[in-house]
């Protein structure tokens, strides 16, 4: 039976419409991910050293922990604090801000320093109860300063002056090389090199531990089974969500389910992650040895210099895994990224060869 012409026309139109629609989907723009113009600081424009281990935003001020002192950027000028000013050591590995008092705490290669109104007091394993002079991480919560050191964790109670040490003798920490600490009023988490994640419950005073279910094997038997690896380098606890970085991938834990991120199944540019910093329950930044990555809960963006030609690049990976290049003209100072902090919509990025100010670009 011959089809009515109107029906043929209708089908043709429908087919054309579907084809057009399909074409539109196929050519859809990459998800809208934040874009930045990066301004980079090195020794050429004021930094005391290009090796920037940590960065901290303090209102309009910016602190950079470098290999050669603690630099503060304020009113478009850099000032550097050194051991001559009382800093425990020239190499500043970690930074934390006491939001209540405005004091800055700096973990260094030879002690912990408190910078308060321009005065620096330093705590070492010899002159105080600090467990070890190599301070990889520091976090301030209420009256307590929590510290991650090469010999376990410790807590300084600012009210009483008491130091409490946490190590293999009183916690499930079977290695004591603590890399990072994230303290909140409810929970405190330690990232421990070779000993997974330690959780301290502020209410009960009890410790718990999260390990890689595959132990120290460099394999993942079952995806999302638990913490991705025992060598945990960084932890960030935000909105009751635990973000953990390791040298072999990253993890997110919501209290019930783990979700792991590897280069093979996410937008991570590298599994070697120096720091993770959660923005909220969904979003986080990952500082890797092959660039800076942002995850918005679905999509990924990577900011770096191209691994092929060194040109600035930004790539976006959508939920389906499609990667789209976004034209950019700037990139962070170096692909080996060590730290990040937020200043409103802007980001500040610590890298192995300079500090970068990511100035948010709005369409």
């Amino acid at each position, binding site marked *: 039976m011959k089809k009515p012409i109107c029906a043929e026309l209708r089908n043709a139109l429908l087919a054309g419409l579907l084809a057009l629609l399909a074409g539109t989907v196929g050519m859809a723009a990459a998800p809208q991910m934040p874009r930045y113009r990066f301004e980079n600081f090195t020794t050429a424009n004021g930094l005391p050293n290009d090796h920037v281990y940590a960065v901290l935003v303090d209102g309009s001020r910016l602190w950079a922990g470098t290999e050669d002192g603690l630099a503060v950027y304020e009113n478009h000028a850099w000032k550097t604090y050194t*051991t*001559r000013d*009382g800093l425990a050591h020239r190499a500043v590995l970690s930074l934390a801000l006491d939001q*209540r*008092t*405005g*004091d800055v705490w700096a973990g260094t290669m030879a002690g912990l320093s*408190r910078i*308060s*109104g*321009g*005065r*620096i*007091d*330093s705590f070492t*394993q*010899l*002159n*105080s*109860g600090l*467990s*070890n002079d190599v301070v990889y991480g520091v976090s301030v919560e209420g009256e307590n300063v929590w510290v991650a050191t090469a*010999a376990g964790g410790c807590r300084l109670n*600012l*009210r*009483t002056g*008491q*130091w*409490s*040490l946490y*190590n293999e*003798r*009183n916690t499930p920490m079977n290695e004591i090389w603590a890399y990072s600490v994230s303290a909140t009023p409810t929970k405190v988490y330690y990232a421990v090199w070779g000993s997974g994640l330690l959780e301290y419950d502020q209410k009960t005073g009890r410790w718990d531990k999260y390990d890689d279910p595959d132990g120290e094997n460099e394999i993942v038997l079952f995806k999302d089974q638990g913490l991705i690896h025992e060598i945990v380098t960084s932890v960030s606890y935000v909105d009751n969500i635990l973000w953990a970085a390791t040298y072999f991938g990253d993890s997110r834990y919501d209290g019930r389910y783990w979700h792991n991120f590897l280069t093979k199944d996410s937008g991570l540019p590298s599994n070697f992650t120096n720091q993770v910093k959660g923005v909220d329950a969904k979003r986080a930044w990952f500082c890797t040895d092959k660039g800076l990555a942002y995850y918005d809960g679905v999509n990924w963006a990577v900011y770096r210099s191209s691994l092929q030609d060194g040109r600035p690049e930004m790539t976006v990976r959508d939920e389906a895994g499609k990667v789209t290049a976004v034209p950019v003209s700037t990139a962070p100072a170096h692909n080996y990224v060590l730290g990040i902090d937020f200043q409103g919509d802007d980001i500040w990025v610590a890298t192995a060869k300079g500090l970068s100010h990511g100035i948010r670009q709005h369409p």
Partner: protein
Amino acid sequence: MRSGSIQTVHARGSVRPARKLGACGWSWTVLSMVAGVCLGWAAWSGSSVHAGEEKPSVESMDYASPLEVLLSPDGARLYVLCQQSEEIRVLDATKYAVIKTIAVGRVPRGFSLSPDGARLFVTNSWDDTLSVIDTNSLSVVDTWPVGAEPSSVVEDRAGKKLFVANRISNDVAVLDAETGAEQKRLLAGRGASYMALSPDGTKLYATHVYPNPSRVRTGLENRTAPESEITVIDVARAVVVDRMALHQIAGVFHVAFSADGRLGAVAQYHPKNTVPLAHLEHGGAFEDTLTVFGADVGKPVEVPLDELERYASQPFGVVISSDKSRMYVTSSGSESVIVIDVARLVRTIHAHPASFVQDLSASANYVVARIGVGLNPRGLALTGDGRRLFVANRLDDTISVIDTAGNRVVTSIKLDGPKRISPLRHGEQTFYSARQSFQGQIACATCHIDSTFDGMTWDLEPDGFGRDIVDNRLIEDLIDTDPFKWTGTNPNIPTECGPRTEKYFWRSEQWDNLTLTDVTLYMRSLPPRPSRWKLRGYELTAAQERGKAIFERNVDKFHNPIGEFNRCIYCHNGLKGTRQQSFDVGTGKETDNTGVFDTPQLSNIALTAPYLHDGSARTLEEIWTVFNPKDQHGRTNDLTKDELNDLIEYLRTR
């Protein structure tokens, strides 16, 4: 120490109200006097009263001891903070009649009015509370817990925040002005004590009485010049925004501003502790100075108050007249008020851009009068019209009223209290007065601030320059801690404070025997301040318990017995923590004439850094982490870091 009560000094030296002076009160007083004489003789003769014996105090007179004065905004009332009687006396500021006496907490130290004058806040330094007095009803309406040894209080102009300087916790606490709830504590200088708002109310300036810990080790190690600061706090944000460095300053007291905010001043000591203290006649051990700051002078400038033969020992209170013509400073050791012509001071500063702090002739350029007042003058208050100045004379229970036009005392308001000067009171008066020393330069209290210590080390003895550097020790709780001196060579306080000290420090006439006995009585009467590290009920925390076990152990972690002499508790035994003997604990230096040192008592050891005989250990930890490599100062090198922390937690309870 309420009015009318007497005290009992217990074996551990704590002070508690014993009974009211009622019908039998005078008999108690007489008994106390007799006991005082007896104890005085005991002290003089070198014998001691043994721990464990309950004994009445050497005396129990309830003096008012006015420490601070304050005028109400309308100038009608004069508030007097009476430290020993622990009360605020409210006087009519014209007729000087007492309107009311208000009991407050233990050993009040500072007070201030709310901007509208409706509330009077009083810091009670020994029970760590703040009394809130309604100035309408003249009654305490609230008592709020605050930090350790609160020493002054200031409310912001908005009436939202209270700032409390805590001497022991070295901070400024920020409280909700309505509820007293503490919001946070800001790191201040060591011994944070006095504060003032800038006239525009935007900044709070805080001082501290002990120098800040040395930050960086120097070639001189323990012989570091003191460093102090004026902590500047942004009132609206309640954060520290600056620390004005005061180099070579230790002991900073009141701070004041001119009404226009262009000139500020702090009263302070300038010790010379890095040179041998051998020549008082060459400018002495201390200079008594001000640091002035603000737009009128540019950078902060230190200016001397001393004059040859007329030293301004222990400057304490400072106030600037509203027309900025005059500045008044109490010199509590010299029992005088120094009157400064502000315009001439500013001119002198601008004319001498280089430091002239060591110039004993400089003060003649701006000091226009030195007015003798009562004993140990401390706080002062100036009427709004600047015509009358009130001065609290702490140790003779009077308020001097100075006519500022004639620079003379026109009235001395006698506060109610004992008329007789007890031996103990006389001892205290002597302790705080510089009259006895060469040119009136220093008093005992110059180095023992508020009868404590000064946080510094000195090259004191005539044993050769650079020899026997010694840390200044706390003088509380001295009974049963003899002998004295780090070398333990002075068997009792009269020897320690007697002819030797007089020859060395005073370079003038000696105290007579009765005066020396009274000073001894006073020093032996000083109880320890309450430990801030003990829990209520004196039970120990888990860490303190673990530390106590380490302190008392006789076997090390490897199950090896610890020799008797190498146990903490052997040398630091008994309630005071001293065997009262000298030992070689391996801490002697090449500069020491002996390596054998007296065992110091442990009372309030947490407060008294630096440590060891020469102050070379900046913290308790360093005693063992740095200065005990061979386990001579107790067996400690088997301890882990957390075990050492436990030991220190226990020591802080002593």
